[in-house]
């Protein structure tokens, strides 16, 4: 009798352990840009629910490959998948925007006392290689009364493929047709000019140590490195500083378009207070997942991340999702299934 009881207990424990283990560990891979907030989320979420999420920040491109191969429960990418890329996937993949971020135009002009103002034309001129000196009329026009030095410009871009570059070149393509046709938008492009720094820290480092340099980095890196940040003229004609508030304004302005398709770029937003060089980052999930337990755990996590998780974004310099976009995510969440059965 005692023997039997012990056996039953062990069997029960074993089945419990295996059932829980299957549901308790999720794997994901992809973008490096949201890694700080994601790892914070996974950490807090594990303490709260016991669900462990292993995330490898191997880059958006590699993350998409992993999703395609089905080796992870979810992928993460700073660039939304194009229609062509979606068609390459074995099953339907849905996008969940999680947080937004802004890119700061950083520069190194030690003698400049007021913040530099940049127009889209000036940024295009600089990155096309047409503007080579700081006192070029194209830059000077937007900075009346400011003595710009006659020093050569060192144009710095990312050398590694990155979501940051994707946001920046998407912006340049949105404001200039010549850029769109000759260079285009991608995680890596054929730059007409400039030098490449590896990673946000590489670009920040080059700008920091080279007088006359200009580059683009994620807002958090500009702040950490105490780099001078330029104001950029938005579509409404106002010079706007990159900040969480102006990024949220950009996401909010894109609301109706995002409602139709969350993949719509939010660059060059029309609102008067919106910062024009910003982007969303996404989780990529199969709409129908095979393992019901894992699928349920993932859906629960996303539900938490787009609601309670948002409060953790701002201390890490990410912009939280506006209410409209949270609603769009909720709607997408309700389309998730496993074996045809709804998860939430």
């Amino acid at each position: 009798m005692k023997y039997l009881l012990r056996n039953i207990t062990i069997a029960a424990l074993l089945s419990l352990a295996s059932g829980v283990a299957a549901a308790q560990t999720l794997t994901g891979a992809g973008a490096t840009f949201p890694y700080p907030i994601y790892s914070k989320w996974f950490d807090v979420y594990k303490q709260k629910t016991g669900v462990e999420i292993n995330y490898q920040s191997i880059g958006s491109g590699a993350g998409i490959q992993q999703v395609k191969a089905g080796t992870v429960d979810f992928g993460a990418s700073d660039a939304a998948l194009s229609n062509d890329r979606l068609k390459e996937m074995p099953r339907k993949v849905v996008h969940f925007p999680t947080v937004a971020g802004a890119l700061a135009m950083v520069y190194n002009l030690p003698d400049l006392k007021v913040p530099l103002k940049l127009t889209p034309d000036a940024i295009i001129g600089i990155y096309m290689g047409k503007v080579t000196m700081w006192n070029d009329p194209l830059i000077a026009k937007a900075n009346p009364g400011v003595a710009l030095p006659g020093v050569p410009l060192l144009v710095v871009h990312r050398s590694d493929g990155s979501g940051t570059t994707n946001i920046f070149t998407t912006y340049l393509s949105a404001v200039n047709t010549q850029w769109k046709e000759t260079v285009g938008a991608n995680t890596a492009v054929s730059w007409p000019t400039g030098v490449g720094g590896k990673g946000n820290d590489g670009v920040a480092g080059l700008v920091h140590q080279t007088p006359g340099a200009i580059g683009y980095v994620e807002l958090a890196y500009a702040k950490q490195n105490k780099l001078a940040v330029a104001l950029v003229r938005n579509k409404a004609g106002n010079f706007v500083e990159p900040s969480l508030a102006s990024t949220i304004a950009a996401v909010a302005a894109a609301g109706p378009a995002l409602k139709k398709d969350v993949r719509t770029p939010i660059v060059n937003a029309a609102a008067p207070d919106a910062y024009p060089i910003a982007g969303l980052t996404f989780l990529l999930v199969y709409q129908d997942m095979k393992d019901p337990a894992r699928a349920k755990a993932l859906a629960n996590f996303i539900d938490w991340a787009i609601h309670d998780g948002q409060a953790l974004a701002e201390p890490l310099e990410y912009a939280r999702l506006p209410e409209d976009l949270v609603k769009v995510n909720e709607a997408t969440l309700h389309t998730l299934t496993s074996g045809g059965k709804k998860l939430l």
Partner: protein
Amino acid sequence: MATGVAELERGWRGPRTRARARAWADTAHHRLLQILALTVFVAVVLIAWQTVQGALPALRAYGWRFLISQDWDPVAEHFGALPYLFGTAMSSALALLLALPLGIGTAITLVELAPRRVGSIVAFVVELLASIPSIVYGLWGLFVLAPTLRSIYEPWLIKHFGFVPLFRGFPFGIGMLNAGIVLGVMIVPTIVSISREILLSMPRALREAALALGATRAEAIGVTLDAARPGILGAVILALGRALGETMAVTMVIGNTNRMSISLLAPGATMASVIANEFTEATTKLHLSALIEIALVLLAATTLVNAAARLLVIWTTGGRRDVAGAA
């Protein structure tokens, strides 16, 4: 005690069994070593096979044009490796140019001129250089060398030699020159330590005979060097191999651009650096495949360099195998 036990065991097995067991152990040992040696060979073959497989889409799409096209445009999906081939060749050549006199000069000094104890201490320090991680060299290039080049040496070069296309441009500190210097410093230890071993292995009689014939000290060193040439050549090729494949340090200081320029002050890129830069975020199949094809080209280049080195050694020694390093 141990031998006693062994004797006891042998005692009841008998001489024939013992011989058979020994032969079996010999064969097993032999096979094991063969398998180990084969593993390395198979690994290389598998790497080559996998690389070719990965590169197939790009090979089919671009063919030979891949090697001569200057275009590297991930958006339009036009891929050509020429800027990276050029960058790898130029940065490695520059590194060799700097490291060769420095490395061989150091090796000669350590073996022939410096007091024995000083020689071994300096040799130890030089070998220490080889164990510094390449990211540290990269950081040094970025935060120490680049500002110095930018504020002192490059303006000087532009002012005095600006008429030569090699030194035309703006002094930004990072670029081909910086990459060449960093690579040069990185490969000096390889050249020094191998050349030193080779010179140490030269028979004393060689130098003594030269001196006895009335040669000056410099001439005697020349005779030793001449005999050591194949080995030193081997050292140089090994160093070149490291320069060709070095990734992290170069990526940090070369400026990473796909535009080719003859100027040393301009930014560039190498085959290894473009792979490191773009591999993780390559989102299209062709982009990924083109990067793998670059790896294939790099593999072929290093194979060619090594093969050329072997041929050169055979040619300079006339096929003799008694000269140091000829094997």
